[in-house]
């Protein structure tokens, strides 16, 4: 009962934030509503027993990546109210297309619900601790992807510094 109430509250906050991102005209409002979506998603991860992922979502995604977005919006400061003078094809074909896609996925999920077991809070405590088990997996089974992502981050840092540098 409490699980359902919590899920509905946080789910509504997520969807509300996403709709706000779509509707707002100034990008700073969209950015802040995306931060709200990420925070609510972090709480939903807690409901699913993924405590370390929830903490990392707040620290990395909402607290670093979105801060970068907010910085760029503040610095460039030309992203004032945009006019939707865009392609009408996108609106008249994309809009119904997305609705059809969403409807199809929702229908499929509800139809196949009987094959899955319901989620209960506390049904998935990893031994001895979520962090210990994740670290075990990350450094033993997934060691090669881990090292490759470190190289990826290095390349991204170098690329970002070179691209954003002023030509002197």
């Amino acid at each position, binding site marked *: 009962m409490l699980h359902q109430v919590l899920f509905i509250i946080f789910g509504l906050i997520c969807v509300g934030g996403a709709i706000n991102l779509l509707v707002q005209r100034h990008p700073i409002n969209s950015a802040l509503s995306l931060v709200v979506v990420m925070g609510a998603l972090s709480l939903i991860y807690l409901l699913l027993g993924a405590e370390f992922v929830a903490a990392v979502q707040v620290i990395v995604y*909402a607290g670093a990546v979105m801060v970068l977005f*907010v910085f760029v919006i503040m610095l460039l400061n030309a992203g004032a109210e945009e006019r939707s003078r865009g392609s009408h094809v996108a609106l008249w074909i994309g809009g119904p297309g997305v609705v059809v896609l969403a409807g199809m996925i929702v229908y499929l999920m509800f139809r196949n619900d009987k094959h899955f077991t319901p989620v209960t809070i506390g049904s998935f405590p990893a031994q001895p601790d979520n962090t210990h088990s994740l670290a075990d997996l990350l450094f033993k089974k997934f060691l090669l992807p881990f090292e490759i992502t470190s190289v990826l981050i290095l390349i991204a840092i170098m690329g970002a510094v070179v691209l954003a540098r002023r030509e002197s």
Partner: protein
Amino acid sequence: MTAFLIAAVVKILLVVFLLLTGVAYMTWLERKVVGHIQNRWGPTRVGPFGLLQPLADGIKFILKEDMVPDSVHKGLYILAPALALTMSLISIAVIPFGENITIAGTTTPLQITGVTRPGSPITDINIGLLIILGVTSIGVYGVALAGWSSNSKYALLGSLRASAQMISYELALGLSLVGVLILAESFSLRHIVDTQSGTWFGFLPRWYIFPQFIAFFIYLMAAFAETNRIPFDLPEAETELVAGYHTEYSSMKFAMFFMAEYVNMITVGCLATLLFFGGWHGPLFGPPLLQALLPVFWFSVKIFVFMFLYIWIRGTLPRFRYDQLMAFGWKFLLPLAIANILVTGLIVALGA
């Protein structure tokens, strides 16, 4: 169940009340100590030794005219100080102040987010330390939005500098704590304190400051930069960008930024105590009632030492220039923190 709820509500009210009173009297302590360092008295008029000065300041803040300039973005202008203060206060929820305390038949741990059942150890949040780091990351938004919503050049520049400084030193802060985490093997703050009980050679307490003194040094520097205190307070120095990101704020909203800064200082002091100085462990003596209250006393003494250190350094050192500040954080503290993790990990792996 109702006893649990009542205990939780009483704990929350007590902690918030003590915290805000502590913030008010920390401003008094700062003015007195900085005054004496500079060979003058500090506040002496209002009450004996100026002890009622925070009360007078509070009344002044409440009665001042709350100006909202015309061209600000109204929503974000009001949201920013609220966000800064809320995030500062949330961190206190996961900090443990002591063990179980039994009052009128109900036993409850001295921590807002701790639960205990009779006969089992106290349960804490598994990721307590990560929650504090996450909340610190969200606190950057308060500073960034304050400057941007004020719609003024000085405020925007000050807030960009302050938030860039905060996110740079967050890295060094987090990485300096990894050394402690390797030794303690848990993110739970209570567990980290529990592993620091006992002594080496009979007299040296097993505090993590002794094996991790480099990490403590890095943590202290990063904490000074996170809370925007001297020597890292360029973004809010009066001689620089007018007043930085809170230029356009007056009375109560400015007081909220002010309080958020001091609450951040207390949180950082609490973290340093828990992680490096053994939390509430200290010599216990006397009758059982005294023994139940002494851990809280030792905890408060350690936090007081940190606050005094903050204020002492404020009165003594000049401030860094901005490029020196960023170079120090990225080119010195970050590699040192990573080297500390390497050496700690190596020693633990070879010793196991």
